[in-house]
């Protein structure tokens, strides 16, 4: 089953005595072919799970670097079907799990059932939907489960205790902890220790659930999260794609190098 492969990715990292490394880049940035190459390069550089952004122009959660990536993909004419094709092509050669991160209107416009059908056929393991909070997402989460796709619930520093418990109770095997109140890619404004305290609280309530930590993590701080389940780096990679394009360098190679460096820092 797809969902159990996602859990295996976490477990493999745990066997290495480290957190799993997740990368976030926008699917189709800057174009279909390069985006596929970026995914391949990320996988070869040791990322455990690939988060693929299905970008939305009117997003309310993305910081500047990811907005730039989204804008490049969308203005290049990337459609939802192109994202599924990129993932499907990638999965032909790589085992690395892919999860889609998107916004509700993208799923609505595609049609929930059709969207899930495509997720299954292109071997997507999980879905994160930024603007579809608990409990409004429960019907869709159930449909995900029926298709063996993990719907990843979001938690944040201001999710109060009761809500936290309820969300965890309904959550599938993986949740995502937004480490600080901000959009993506801002400077980490809380200490790593504080984040880990919240992480431990989540694990105390739900020891069996894997918890991804995201927002504000860079090469400088990633080692602080070595003992957690998983952490995501996104904006730094999107920025690297922008830089590579501006300087006419190969974005796949450069993003790959960055991922290797992150992996090494997470492992040391």
């Amino acid at each position, binding site marked *: 089953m797809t969902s159990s492969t996602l859990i295996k990715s976490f477990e493999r990292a745990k066997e290495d005595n480290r957190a799993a490394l997740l990368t976030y880049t926008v699917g189709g940035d800057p174009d279909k072919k390069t985006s596929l190459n970026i995914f391949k390069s990320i996988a070869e550089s040791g990322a455990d799970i690939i988060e693929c952004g299905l970008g*939305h*122009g*009117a*997003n*309310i*959660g*993305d*910081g500047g670097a990811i*907005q730039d990536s989204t*804008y490049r993909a*969308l203005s290049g004419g990337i*459609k*939802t079907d192109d994202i599924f094709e990129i993932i499907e092509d990638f999965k032909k050669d790589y085992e690395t799990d892919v999860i889609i991160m998107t*916004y*509700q*209107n*993208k*799923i*609505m*416009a*595609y049609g929930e059932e059709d969207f899930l059908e495509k997720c299954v056929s292109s071997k997507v393991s999980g879905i994160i939907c*930024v*603007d*579809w*909070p*608990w*409990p*409004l997402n429960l019907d869709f989460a159930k449909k995900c489960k029926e298709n063996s796709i993990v719907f990843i619930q*979001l*938690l*944040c*520093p*201001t*999710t*109060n205790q009761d*809500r936290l418990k309820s969300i965890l109770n309904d959550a599938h095997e993986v949740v995502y902890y*937004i480490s600080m*109140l*901000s*959009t993506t890619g*801002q400077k980490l404004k809380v200490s790593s220790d504080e984040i880990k305290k919240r992480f431990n609280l989540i694990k105390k309530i739900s020891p069996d659930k894997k918890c991804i930590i995201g927002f504000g993590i860079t090469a400088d701080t990633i080692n602080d999260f070595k003992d957690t389940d998983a952490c995501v780096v996104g904006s730094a990679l999107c920025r690297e794609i922008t830089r590579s394009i501006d300087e006419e360098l190969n974005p796949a190679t450069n993003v790959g190098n960055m991922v290797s460096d992150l992996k090494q820092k997470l492992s040391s």
Partner: protein
Amino acid sequence: MKLEKGIPLIDQHDENGYWGGKFGGNQIAESLNYPIEELTREFEKLRNDKTFIAERDFYFKNFVGAPTPFIKLENLTKHLGGAQIYCKLVSKATGGAHKAYNAVVHSLICKRLGKTYIGGDTGAGYAGKMLSMAAAKFNLKCKIFMGAKDVERQSINVFSMRSYGAEVVPVNSGSQTLVDAVSECMRWWTSENEEAHMCVGSTVGPTIFVKICAWSTAQISREMKKQVMDEFGEVPKDMKLINCVGGGSSAAGFWNEWIDYDNIELIGVEAGGPEGSSKHAAPLTNDSPIGVLHGATQYVIQDDQGEIEETDSISAGLDYPGVSPLHCFLKETGRARYTSASDEEAIEAFQLVSKNEGFVSPSLEPSHAFAEAIKIAPKLSKDTVIVVDSCGDSAKDSKIIAERLGYKI
């Protein structure tokens, strides 16, 4: 989907914030859940708090200038030769439009929340201008998000906002207009909500913002109800209330007290854009697909990928791809009728009203509403009363209108 009688329109949503189980809601990132719950709790308390109401009324009366006039447009009525045409001259409110009501209420709420910083979005610049004015009065730090294109087009309003001490942030993403300004403002609030309050400039966004805005603009119909009784001695048997609809804040306020009167027809006029163009800002009239924009489910102008499409209207205040969940609900229940007027019809209406009435010179937004009144009035009897909400003054649009009519300013 059914409208309930005796319950304010803003309270007819379900526990998840959906009107008719379908429109509105809080489709937001988890990090906005807490501040939205906090604001919802606080607003429910404040709207039942007599001191707060007295404070609101004091500022509405002494700063915004309530009540605004309710007058008969004698010359226009005679010219069109049909229904009697009246006008609620909301453009006489401070700042020249209805946006001051929402700005004052949000500033008062911000203070009650113990926050010292307020941020808001703006398209044409009116919502931003009023919020900056209110923020200056109430000693709040103020940040206004505005599409970079609008900053360029509405430089006079940008100058005003800066004069009131607001920081104007040009938004360079996407189409660089209102839709992007709202997105950016919500992103800002996601980061700053511990210290800052957000004001959404219309009856759009997550449920609580729709409610606060419509609660604020309801002042328009509260005043008018009394004025109608003074004028006619009773509620006229055949009355039609015509209002332009962009986000829908002035129409929501203009209709609020009249929703339960079945004999009163509510007509909303959207921006049809340039004649012959497929770009418009009329999601209700043209049955746009339902989608999620800025945290709420509504009719949205979008492509088959769920990407928000650019709109085109001569009136910056109506140039929004979505529309208030309240209006989606009023449309679906059949309580209000929605139609559109083109840029050209709006300009003609502006000319006809200004020429006939002098003291009433509508901005391009209410000119859309007047266009509909002009269209239907001649076919109606003298016993029919049409009231148009002239919710903005043409002064702000002089340059655009003059250029359109071939004058150089």
